[in-house]
């Protein structure tokens, strides 16, 4: 116990929060009781995502955008104290082509914004960007220049992709830490795709998904996948929060099965995996796709310790009446301390943290702009 306490005291936890009006950096020691709030950075701009490099925790990337002034990418080399803009030229490779519009007509691919930035596991200069209209870009020079991994859009199903209500966004990028070159990505509303060669070639991996609201409920593409997650020790096991349904794959996405079980609603956005227990997962049920708030006005995180199907409500410290916030897809994350810390942000501007795997929650900041994303760095 004394050793664990020592490690906690020596650690720093940094929570990177993207909001509709700027970025914030929340910092604590490993006890995770007292938090410093820095920001807003880039005040007035939408910060869809901020994420640190696993190889160099001081290297951060942020997606900064605005309906007025477009897309910028910011980079920090000192853990978020100072920032500098890097490259913002996201040009689709070759002929951009078309995807389906909401009415089923062909619509040209148009860059709108970067939803998600995923720094490579081993090299802080390499970073991937998931963008709207859906495509995957990569930078090998710390964000200065970007090139599209266009095999994703060109593998064949691209012209059949269609936007979800929030736009046609590539929102999730999972880099397999065990199988070199394997990348999983997810797109609303196309589905999940996998590359086994570093992003050159791709194929859809949506077998087992069933979406009643599309013309062919079991189509190869067209599923509104909201988020996927994996545990680094077991990258063949994937968990998914789909528009409706919580799903699981035990074969790297070759097949999926539903594990919604006893959830009060299987609609939601984020899904996350405990940092030390690969069968412990978290979701935040939302009432429905038109009522983006928790059932019964009670903000509840649900935890399964069996990889799905059996879920328990985690409520201690969370509002249990008159709560009508949403928790967006990139707004939940875990630290790697023991016990595992779990964090999520709401559209009401609260960031909640649990230092004990979800048993107890506290709002570590509660009046930010609407939260778009939350990431956590554990620095020892």
């Amino acid at each position, binding site marked *: 116990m004394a050793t664990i306490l020592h490690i906690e005291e020596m650690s720093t936890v940094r929570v990177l929060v993207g909001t509709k009006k700027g970025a914030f950096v929340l910092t604590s020691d490993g006890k995770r009781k007292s938090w410093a709030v820095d920001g807003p950075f880039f005040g*007035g*701009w939408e910060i869809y995502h901020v994420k640190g490099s696993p190889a160099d925790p001081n290297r951060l990337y942020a997606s900064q955008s*605005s*309906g*007025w*002034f*477009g*897309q*910028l990418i910011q980079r920090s080399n000192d853990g978020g104290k100072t920032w500098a*803009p890097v490259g*913002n*030229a996201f*040009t689709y490779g070759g002929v951009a082509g078309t995807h389906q519009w909401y009415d089923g007509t062909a619509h040209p691919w148009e860059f709108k914004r970067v939803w998600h930035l995923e720094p490579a596991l081993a090299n802080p200069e390499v970073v991937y960007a998931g963008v709207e209209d859906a495509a995957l870009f990569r930078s090998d020079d710390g964000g200065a220049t970007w090139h599209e991994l266009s095999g994703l859009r060109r593998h064949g199903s691209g012209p059949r992709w269609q936007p979800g209500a929030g736009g046609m966004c590539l929102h999730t990028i999972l880099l397999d830490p065990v199988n070199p070159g394997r990348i999983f990505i997810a797109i609303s509303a196309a589905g999940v795709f996998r590359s086994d060669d570093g992003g050159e070639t791709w194929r859809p991996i949506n077998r087992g998904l069933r979406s009643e609201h599309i013309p062919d409920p079991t189509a190869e593409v067209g599923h509104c996948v909201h988020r996927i997650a994996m545990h680094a020790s077991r990258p063949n096991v994937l968990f998914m929060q789909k528009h409706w349904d919580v799903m699981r794959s035990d074969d790297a996405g070759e097949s999926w099965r539903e594990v919604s079980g006893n959830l009060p609603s299987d609609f939601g956005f984020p899904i996350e995996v405990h940092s030390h227990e690969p069968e412990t997962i978290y979701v935040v049920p939302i009432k429905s796709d038109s009522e983006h708030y928790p059932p019964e006005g009670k903000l509840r995180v649900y935890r399964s310790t069996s990889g799905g199907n059996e879920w328990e409500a985690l409520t201690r410290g969370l509002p249990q009446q008159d709560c009508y916030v949403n928790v967006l897809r990139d707004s939940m994350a875990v630290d790697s301390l023991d016990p595992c810390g779990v964090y999520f942000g709401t559209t009401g501007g609260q960031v909640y943290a649990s230092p004990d795997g979800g048993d107890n929650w506290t709002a570590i900041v509660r009046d930010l702009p609407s939260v778009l994303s939350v990431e956590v760095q554990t620095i020892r």
Partner: protein
Amino acid sequence: MIQVVLPAHLRNLVGMQGPLVLEVAGIATQRSILDAVEASHPVLRGTIRDRVTLRRRAFVRFFACGQDVSLDPDDAPLPEAIAAGKEPFLIIGAIAGG
């Protein structure tokens, strides 16, 4: 020298609070001024006009001598007061939203 006033968010981006003061090659037009702005401050590429098409972003407007010139041709000469640096070329974030 031509003066260019940026909207607040773009002034923050380039780290300047006053107007940009720029040498503009040839006749002062929207295109030549924006070319000079982007050449002197590359971070502004894509924030005022599209990087590829060079079309003005939808919620950005241009004013010269009290007139909204946003819809004028890119290569139309701007008033002499702009060219002489007596009046600034204004880049404005449109009032939009609710």
